[in-house]
């Protein structure tokens, strides 16, 4: 039985002092004068203002205290070939005993923070809509979980190991059956959970970053014929344009993190402003005009800056996922059909990869699909109601994944 202990975030004072010293020494670059803002990166005025707030008025201790009101724990989990790891996680069970165990998996540059807005609503319910027991870890190499260790074995610590960690965490909490919600890297982890631990343990997946393969006449003859016969909606056309734009213009971070993560690691570990710019660019570019406050931005960045494994450890998974041989690379793996685990797709218009909806059927049995009218890459943060609605509907009495976890269907039992 893996030991689980309560946990409170407590960043050493020395780290805070060092941060402020480095901010005080910041060398800012110049900026071209007549350009359209954001076309080349975060505007200088924004970065200067954020750096100033971070140095002088951002109160990490207050943020930390607020976060520590959440039920946080640390679990010791053994990962095959990679030794013992410590997983930081939020665990909020519902008062409804038969609530659905839900694993919420974040991505980059997100964190466990992303669950905090939806946590109260998800654990409510039991009458009109299902309730959930919510588990939201920091991925290993992120947040307050430990750093991954390179084993002496051939394979690196990639998405399979992250899935193993999450699965074992759910098991350790007594959730032999569970469902998973994930976006960004979290949606990749969700897919591996489904393929490796489904349908016995991982009973259903709701992802908000579907990246399906195009059905061909050879791979999916019926679906292919349907695709050929179906005109793309305006939304789908816009989505394809957005996907192309992302690939051409917004993907350099991915190329760098998946080929030369160590080169950029030096900057991200040694320069708070460098880290701030690296992350803030994506908070802006990937959200749907979300009005990020300074506190939000700096809290998200601070979770990386103060992370246990250091801000650069989070890049490891990008490299590992592209060097997963002899297994497939990440995107290829995400396209593999998982025929026996119910799949839900939440689609947000300002996300990065939006492919024609019929293609989703190459991924597995689509039991739920919702195309939202607003929101981007961080829906649990930008439009929490939307994700809550998706989960309640997909797993609700009329939903395609109702009762997938058997008697723990999220509804109040008569005598409760």
């Amino acid at each position, binding site marked *: 039985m893996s030991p689980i202990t309560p946990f409170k975030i407590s960043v050493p004072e020395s780290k805070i002092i*060092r941060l402020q*010293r*480095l901010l005080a*020494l*910041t*060398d*800012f*670059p*110049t*900026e*071209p*004068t*007549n*350009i359209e803002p954001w076309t*080349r*990166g*975060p505007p*200088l005025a924004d*970065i200067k203002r954020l750096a100033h707030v971070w140095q002088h008025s951002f109160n990490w201790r207050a943020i930390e205290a607020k976060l520590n009101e959440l039920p946080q724990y640390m679990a010791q989990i053994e990962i095959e070939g990679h030794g013992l790891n410590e997983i930081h996680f939020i665990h909020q069970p519902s008062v409804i005993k038969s609530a659905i165990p839900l694993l919420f998996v974040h991505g980059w540059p997100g964190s466990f923070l992303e669950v905090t807005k939806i946590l109260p609503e998800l654990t409510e319910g039991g009458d009109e809509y299902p309730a959930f027991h919510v588990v939201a870890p920091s991925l290993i190499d992120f947040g307050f979980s430990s*750093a*991954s260790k*390179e084993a002496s074995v051939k394979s*690196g610590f990639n998405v399979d190991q992250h899935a193993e960690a999450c699965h074992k965490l759910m098991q350790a909490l007594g959730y032999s059956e569970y469902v998973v919600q994930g976006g960004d890297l979290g949606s990749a982890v969700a897919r591996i959970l489904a393929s490796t631990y489904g349908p016995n343990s991982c009973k259903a997946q709701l992802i908000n970053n579907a990246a399906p393969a195009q059905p061909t006449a050879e791979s999916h003859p019926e679906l292919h014929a349907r695709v050929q016969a179906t005109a793309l909606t305006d939304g789908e056309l816009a989505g394809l344009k957005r996907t192309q734009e992302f690939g*051409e*213009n*917004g*993907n*350099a*971070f991915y*190329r*760098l993190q*998946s*080929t*030369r*993560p*160590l*080169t*950029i*690691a*030096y*900057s*991200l*570990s*040694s*320069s708070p*402003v*460098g880290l*701030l*710019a*690296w992350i803030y*660019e994506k908070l802006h570019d990937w959200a749907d005009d979300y009005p990020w406050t300074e506190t939000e931005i700096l809290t998200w960045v601070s979770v990386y800056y103060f992370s246990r*494994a*250091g*801000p*650069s*450890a989070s890049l*490891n998974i990008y*490299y590992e996922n592209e060097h997963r041989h002899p297994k497939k690379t990440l995107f290829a793996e995400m396209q593999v059909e998982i025929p026996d685990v119910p799949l839900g797709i939440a689609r947000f218009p300002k996300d990065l990869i939006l492919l024609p909806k019929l293609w989703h059927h190459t991924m597995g049995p689509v039991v739920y699909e919702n195309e939202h009218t607003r929101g981007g890459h961080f829906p649990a943060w930008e439009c929490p109601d939307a994700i809550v609605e998706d989960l309640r509907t997909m797993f609700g009495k009329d939903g395609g994944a109702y009762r997938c976890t058997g008697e723990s269907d999220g509804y109040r039992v008569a005598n409760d």
Partner: protein
Amino acid sequence: MPTPVPFKIAVSEEKLRILHQKLSLTEWPDEVPLKEPRSRGAPLQEVKTLVDYWLHSFDWRAQESKLNQFPQFTTDIDVDGFGTYNVHFIHQRSDVPNAIPLIFLHGWPGSFIEVTKILPELVQGGQNFPAFHVVAPSLIDYGFSQGNTKEGFNLDQHAEAYHKLMQSLGYSEYVAQGGDIGNFLTRFLALKYPESCKAHHTNMPTPNPPDPSKHTDLIAKIEAEGGLSEEDQYRLASTQAHHASGMAYAMEHMTRPQTIGYSLADSPVGLLSWIYEKLVDWTAGYPWTADEVLTWVSIYRFSRPGSAAPQRIYYEMMHRESMTVVDVTAQYIDVPLGTSHFKKDLLRFPTRWDATLGPIAFQAEHDKGGHFAAWECPQDLVKDLRDMFGKESPIHGCVAGQSGFT
């Protein structure tokens, strides 16, 4: 024409002090130990050793003095539609009055320093081999030239600036040599100013594959010779490998130059690793000393336009409105061209494809060297230039009155 003003590099004590403070506060990433130590980037132990040396042993003032032994100047150049730019350059005239005026154009992560190994030999000669008057600027946005903060300042504008620089020095006709961005610049000079740029040489030619609709003779010739050789296949494969795993830096420069600019401006070790990774990856076992690496990096750290500037040209190149830079520079430009191929350069193509670029006046293949030819193989580059413009060469005397010989 304004007279060039003599220039000496003089980095402030304040900048040195801040650098040291930051270096001593360096927070290190963890390294994932790997079978292939360089595959994720500049290895941690090497970077730590360099930073330690930088902090305790590297003598910038000594390197600064060494650089200041070269005759440096600055002059104001007007660029149409953009304004006036103060351009820093080395200008060394040969004792041979009829020496060939040559402009040497660096790239990234290089600088004007790259000319310093070949300069002393290039200005010699006049008897058995030609001599050159050498001009080597810091590109605008690099080194000790002024930076540009206006959108749209592309290779066209850079070429205009360096052409006007040569004109301002009294060189109405000249030849050009370059690699990396310098390669593209020699092509733009030849294209825009063929009446002045009488010949150009590149150590990184970038032809497109021969086009069946345009290059039927060349394609037939290659076919007749047995198609692409094993060496050609190897070249193309290594270019592809570079595109697959070594081009992320360029993608970042081309799409988000300001984002990476924040890191490069603020973090000396970030700047060091960004550059050092390429110094090693792009050379063929060149035994970089710590002094060399740190001098190269210091030129970026202490540059006049700052560390977010060098990336801007990549963004502009990618967003050029009319023809793409690749297509502009890969077209046939009717100005004599010399190409030198070095074994480990990043973009390598079958040498027979060079003929699509222009009239080939000189071609050499070297079984050594990489991206920084003037630094790694100065002797070979000097010999190539001497042969290209020598008495036996078809373009001997291409610059009127400046044959390179007494």
